[in-house]
């Protein structure tokens, strides 16, 4: 029972981060029908920019409160990522909007590798230690279940952001424009919506979420690295497909479910395969789920679209 609760908690923490990144994928897919391959790398950019700010600031002003450092890190990472996200859309994807499907996809792969290479040039190949800005001292609310303030913080922030995004999309003027553009570009344009502006806004919001997810991810694993965005990016994409791509609540549910499956899978795989496979196979779950969903239920858990249209 304790193991069960512990795995649930761990799953929720990583799942809520996947969900934040998945939202970015699903928003862009919903509007453009494009998988923004470079989205996972924005998570890396966010984490490394935040790390840079924190280390510069703590060197310049020693003894600052960690919360101030965290706020400063986030306050630089989010705008930087938003700018990068906007530039990617403006330079890379906008001109290819009516090109054959393969073209923007190859561009996206190129952008992803470009971001990684630039990060490698700026920050080097080594793994950087990400400082513990939120306490990780373990608490034990129940016998056998360990939880840290950082984990609670991660879950709370992620859920708050998701709630905020839902409000934005469902209640605000911009949100209505986004939904209209997702439904049909051309008709939305006829209704006086600036489709290019809406698409840019979508990229900017998604990139901001990715930056925050990056800070949370790096805090939880205490490292930052130029290639750190690849795996969570892929898993977040899986989460988006699992929930039904193009569907915002779907991305959240998908992220959480994936986090839980991974956590339980890693915990129990040795028993299930009689010791043949162990927890180093954890990363396989995402791909297996992705394959299974695409074969058996391409529209995802909550989606109504069909994958074949992709």
């Amino acid at each position: 029972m304790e193991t069960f609760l512990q795995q649930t908690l761990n799953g929720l923490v990583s799942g809520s981060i996947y969900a934040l990144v998945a939202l970015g994928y699903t928003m862009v897919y919903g509007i453009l029908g494009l998988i923004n391959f470079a989205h996972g790398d924005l998570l890396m950019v966010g984490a490394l920019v935040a790390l840079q700010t924190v280390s510069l600031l703590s060197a310049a002003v020693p003894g600052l409160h960690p919360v101030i450092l965290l706020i400063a890190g986030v306050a630089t990472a989010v705008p930087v990522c938003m700018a990068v996200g906007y530039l990617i859309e403006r330079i890379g994807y906008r001109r290819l909007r009516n090109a054959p499907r393969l073209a923007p996809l190859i561009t996206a792969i190129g952008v992803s590798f470009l971001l990684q290479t630039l990060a490698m040039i700026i920050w080097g190949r080594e793994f950087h230690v990400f400082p513990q800005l939120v306490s990780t001292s373990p608490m034990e609310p129940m016998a056998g279940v360990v939880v840290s303030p950082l984990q609670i913080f991660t879950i709370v922030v992620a859920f708050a952001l998701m709630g905020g995004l839902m409000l934005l999309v469902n209640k605000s003027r911009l949100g209505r424009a986004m939904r209209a553009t997702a439904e049909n570009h051309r008709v939305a344009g006829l209704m006086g919506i600036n489709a290019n502006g809406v698409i840019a806004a979508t990229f900017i919001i998604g990139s901001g979420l990715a930056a925050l997810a990056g800070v949370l991810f790096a805090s939880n694993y205490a490292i930052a690295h130029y290639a750190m965005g690849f795996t969570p990016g892929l898993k977040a994409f899986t989460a988006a497909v699992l929930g039904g791509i193009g569907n915002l609540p779907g991305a959240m549910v998908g992220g959480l479910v994936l986090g839980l499956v991974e956590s339980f899978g890693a915990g129990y795989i040795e028993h299930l395969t009689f010791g043949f496979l162990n927890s180093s196979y954890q990363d396989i779950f995402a791909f297996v789920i992705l394959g299974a969903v695409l074969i058996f239920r391409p529209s995802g858990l909550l989606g109504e679209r069909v994958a074949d249209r992709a």
Partner: protein
Amino acid sequence: MTTNSTALALPASFALDRRVQRPLVILLALAAPLIALAMGKSWVRVLDFALLYVLLAIGLNLVVGFAGLLDLGYIAFYAVGAYTWAFLASPHFGIHLPFWIVLPLGAAFAGLAGIALGFPTLRLRGDYLAIVTLGFGEIIRIFMNNLNQPINITNGPQGIDSIDPLTIAGLDLSRDLDLFGFQISSLLLYYYAFLACVVFALILVRRLQISRIGRAWAAIRDDELAAKAIGIDTRMMKLLAFALGATFGGVSGGLFAAFQGFVSPESFSLMESIVVLTMIVLGGMGNLAGVVVGAIMLTALPEVLRHFAVPMQMALFGKTLLDPEVLRMLLLSLAMIVMMLVRPAGLLPARTRYAHRDRRTA
């Protein structure tokens, strides 16, 4: 009419007469290693690797360029071929089978892996297919990395070494050949063996492209629904593309294992899949001449950078700002982005009579 794709693809001003062009290319291919040998042995090595990559690019082009299925896990088939050779011709399991058993087996296993990947993904198109194939490649790599326990199959991240070299009719290609007092370098022997494979592959694929199957692939690539409507068995054709493409990867992988004498999961990362894809994109998807040119260019790139970019940076800034490996990645990623924006059909675009003028890369 059988059109020569090279002659058609080149801009009119560069287009040489076919009768001049063909012997010229053959002569160049035969003489290339001798010229390279004069510049140093490492350049011959680069040429050998270039031919292996050409073989890979031809195979991937079959899947991406002809049939329009974006496969980002292609390197997995290369891995299957390489590990098959490593298992069946090395001291790792103590099995030493000759190449004419191992190579076809590797090709067959890779082809089966291609079918295994193709079957569940038949319904997917475009971006979904790309992600699933990418995942497939990663799964294969994770297994290679971890299957050293509880039973040691792949020897994990350390890889397998002292793999048997290619031995044809008693001639061991890893040793320099002594022919009437002339020393023929092992690198040259491998070059001509690989060249033979590449030429065979080129002829085979060229015949395929203009056959009924090739035209069916082009139809599927351009409009799958229409292809189905005119009676093409799209499932069968897509599976065939996956299986044949994978077979080329398997052969190339086996040759790689024999040439290198060592395989480890590190050689089969996602980056490698992307590099092969960039070769096709750069050269011209769907055009064999373009694919060959792209593969040779990108294989030679790191070596060229090492020889020219480093001294140039030293001269300009007094130190090496970007090491060749980083510079290579930078150029690769920029090539993908810029090519798609500026020249989406590649340096030597495919111009077959079956392609639409406005949807060349569809």
